[in-house]
């Protein structure tokens, strides 16, 4: 299916993985794809998203709490404290033996993967492209797929009070086949 993606759409997917990685997220959701589209100022979707008042900072803010980082963080530290475990002390001892950052290096370098909704959104993007008679799957089809999949990205847009019907119309009229 990827060979039918435009260069921009492909870039959005790889950038979504990168964005998830930066945030310490193992799961790559449609919200990460949305963030990638906004961040890269994608030409096919940028205008419609900007007109809807969607920018990277707002997307990131709306994403907060949707995914948990896959490494030991402040929340873990607090939870361990409730068991009487002092993570700072553990970290200190481990680092004394194995060097700085040793405990975090031990955190699983798990492979990232698309969430179920994100996979579904790609399928829906293909369907949108077919429906709109696009010869390839562009970023606007990706975004339409994200909206149709009603996953994380859709919820982020809804949280930002985006008029989804208007956004959809803008995306649908964006490209002539």
């Amino acid at each position, binding site marked *: 299916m990827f060979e039918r993606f435009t260069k921009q759409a492909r870039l959005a997917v790889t950038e979504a993985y990168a964005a998830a990685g930066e945030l310490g997220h193992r799961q790559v959701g449609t919200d990460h794809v949305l963030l990638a589209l906004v961040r890269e100022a994608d030409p096919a979707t940028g205008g419609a998203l900007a007109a809807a008042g969607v920018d990277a900072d707002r997307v990131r803010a709306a994403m907060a709490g949707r995914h948990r980082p896959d*490494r*030991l963080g402040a*929340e*873990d*530290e607090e*939870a*361990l404290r*409730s*068991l009487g*475990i002092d*993570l700072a002390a*553990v970290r200190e001892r*481990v680092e004394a033996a*194995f060097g700085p950052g*040793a*405990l*975090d*290096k*031990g*955190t*699983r*370098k798990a492979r990232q993967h698309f969430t179920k909704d994100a996979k579904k959104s790609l399928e829906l993007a293909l369907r949108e492209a077919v429906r709109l008679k696009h010869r390839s799957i562009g970023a606007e089809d990706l975004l339409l797929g994200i909206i149709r999949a009603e996953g994380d990205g859709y919820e982020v847009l809804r949280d930002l009070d985006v008029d989804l019907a208007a956004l959809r119309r803008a995306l649908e009229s964006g490209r002539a086949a």
Partner: protein
Amino acid sequence: MTEMDDLAAAASGTDPETGLRAALALRRLADSLERLQVTNARRQGWSWQAIAAALEVSRQAVHKKYAREL
């Protein structure tokens, strides 16, 4: 639920939210330590068999979990 009830539940450890989160954090910490120590053991020339025995799991289990990344 009142604030007092909330506090009591958290303190006695029966609030599932707090308890489950603590269990998750503990698992993450344990995973982290295990990975670090398995790496260390391999570096010191330990066999997968010896590591598995120390962790009280099968050789296959430890190999499957770590062989590809070490």
